[in-house]
């Protein structure tokens, strides 16, 4: 088996006496679309924060393409090709949409912390910014200040910034939360396009989205993964039903 794109080994995280993440081990293959589901407070966002470097694990390791990244600062992890979005829109509110995406692009275009060149004169940066904007259907709003965007567009911008750096492992934290039905559909299409050829890890509450997108689903309950399998098996797993899905209606299997 090839090296997993992302590998969690015996991951633990405690805040004082509270054990939030408990012995989580998980391998995610390159190109896989992996969903993490679980009830509120199960530790999904904490898990994302551990992987992306916002938190340091109490014990255990995270490996990205076979290299240990746990304990590294978040920006170093990002440079190694792991990018994430946030549950609440986490954008640069006083800048325009174009400037937001351009900031996301800068690092991958080798701009570093340059103070000796004009940001506007680099063709490659402008070209890449344009591509990302077009990819996320944001070109019409390119010069709108991010704070004035409608909610659904802010979520799209959130994803645009996440993919702008060209990372090959992408973590999306509830990308469709709070969206209407049609907005969700648009977001799912965007996620599908954005994650092509990349490894995607997604936390989501909308079961329709999950069963539609994911190749594999892990169920996190009280900081432990109780099942990790393709959607068809998860649907039939009695432990999962009891712990999480309960009486919630599962979408019918599409043939």
């Amino acid at each position: 088996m090839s090296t997993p794109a992302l590998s969690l080994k015996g991951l633990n995280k405690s805040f004082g006496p509270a054990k939030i993440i408990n012995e989580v081990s998980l391998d995610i293959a390159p190109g896989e679309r992996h969903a993490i589901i679980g009830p509120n407070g199960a530790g999904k966002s904490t898990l994302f924060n551990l992987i992306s470097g916002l938190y340091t694990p109490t014990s255990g390791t995270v490996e990205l393409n076979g290299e240990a990244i746990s304990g590294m600062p978040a920006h170093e992890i990002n440079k190694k090709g792991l990018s994430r979005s946030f549950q609440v829109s986490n954008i640069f509110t006083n800048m325009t949409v174009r400037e937001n995406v351009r900031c996301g692009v800068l690092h991958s275009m080798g701009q570093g912390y340059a103070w000796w060149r004009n940001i506007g004169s680099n063709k490659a940066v402008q070209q890449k910014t344009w591509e990302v904007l077009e990819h996320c259907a944001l070109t019409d709003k390119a010069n709108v200040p991010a704070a004035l965007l409608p909610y659904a567009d802010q979520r799209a911008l959130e994803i645009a910034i996440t993919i702008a750096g060209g990372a090959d492992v992408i973590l999306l934290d509830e990308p469709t939360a709070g969206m209407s039905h049609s907005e969700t559909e648009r977001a799912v299409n965007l996620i599908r396009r954005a994650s092509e050829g990349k490894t995607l890890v997604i936390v989501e509450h909308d079961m329709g989205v999950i069963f539609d997108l994911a190749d594999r689903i892990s169920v996190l309950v009280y900081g432990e993964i109780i099942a990790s399998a393709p959607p068809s098996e998860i649907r039939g797993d009695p432990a999962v039903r009891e712990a999480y899905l309960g009486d919630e209606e599962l979408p019918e299997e599409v043939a």
Partner: protein
Amino acid sequence: MSDTTRGFADLAPSTGAKFRQRTLPILIFAAILFAIPMAGPSRTFYTLAHQMGINIVFALSYNMILGKGGLLSFGHAVYFGLGGYLAMHAMNWIEDGVGIWGAIPMFFLPLVGFAGGALAGAIIGWPSCRKAGTTFAMISLGVAELIFAAAFMFDSFFGGEQGISGDRMNGIELFGLSMGPIDEVYWFIAFWTVVGVIGMWAFTRTPLGKLSEATRDNAQRVQFIGYNPQRVRYLVFIFAGGFAGLAGGMAAVNYEIFTPDALSLVPSGFVLIMAYVGGITYFVGPIFGAILLTYMQSMLSDFTEAWLLYLGVLFIAIVMFAPRGIAGVVFGFLDGVRGENPGRYFGRWIMRLVGILLMLMGLIVLVEVSVRWSNGYGEVYEPFGLHLGHGNVLSWLLVILPAVAGVWLTRFASKEEEGQ
């Protein structure tokens, strides 16, 4: 929507717009500076203009961290002062011909100031830029106190209470400027003011300048686009220190003396007020603020001993009612008269202006009468031949009536706006 003929070029402002918004204002600014000496200004005017030039650069450098970087510093004069002190020493080295200094014209002293300010920023910024927000503000205050205290301990560098003085008429002459007469110093100040303005404007257009804005808006997210927000802050801080030092170098040549007062909390507070009153969300805001407050500082203090009180009221009024500063008011006005129904907008604007002037009139009478009353020299405030003593009913009527009328007018204008 995804029209393939459109490209990235469409998103950027057109060449014409760039010229109008970026190049033209700087050309106009430079043209004004160039035209001033032709009007044959007085010595007083030159003195004022030099102070304005220095403060423009200083206030802009402060806004690199406050407006563009989101870092509130209470000790920015430290970098102005340290840069200025280094330039002051360099002035003396040039006079004595120490080492290679004999070959360096006085004209370039602001660059020495820049180096001094940047070096101080690099040393002090290292621990203080690790955190933003309140922590950063408190550290800046502590550092300012520390450096000010140190200035009285290390006499050979700071010169104790007398400070360090020098003579700018030494070394090689550049551009035929002996740097002696005030109208020759003018060209020196004008040159470095323009260099400072262009330099700091250019900085906002670089990747680091943009990252600074991104870090201000959302430091956490900056980490997830591959940048270390601490390093962004630190680098920006060094540049802000450098430009503050540039202003210090200009001041060193202009005044030929630097005392520890230049590093104290007073100028640190003054630069904050200049930047804020001018408008920290705009690049040009601090320029407006520096011009107005420098004028107030040197001119208003001739008219009234209570000028600091007016400065305080101005600052509080701006913070409460016009948080985007003078620049916000000016650009808001330009947008308003260009928008729908300019006539009514202009009407409301005039109403507000009259209201504010009335309130100001009430305030002035109150302050001037009270100050004289409090002094107890029996002096009486006598504007336009009126005799406004504190026992005169007319005095108090002239406080209350304009103030009430002014408040009423401004509120009326606001209601009118809402009702529209």
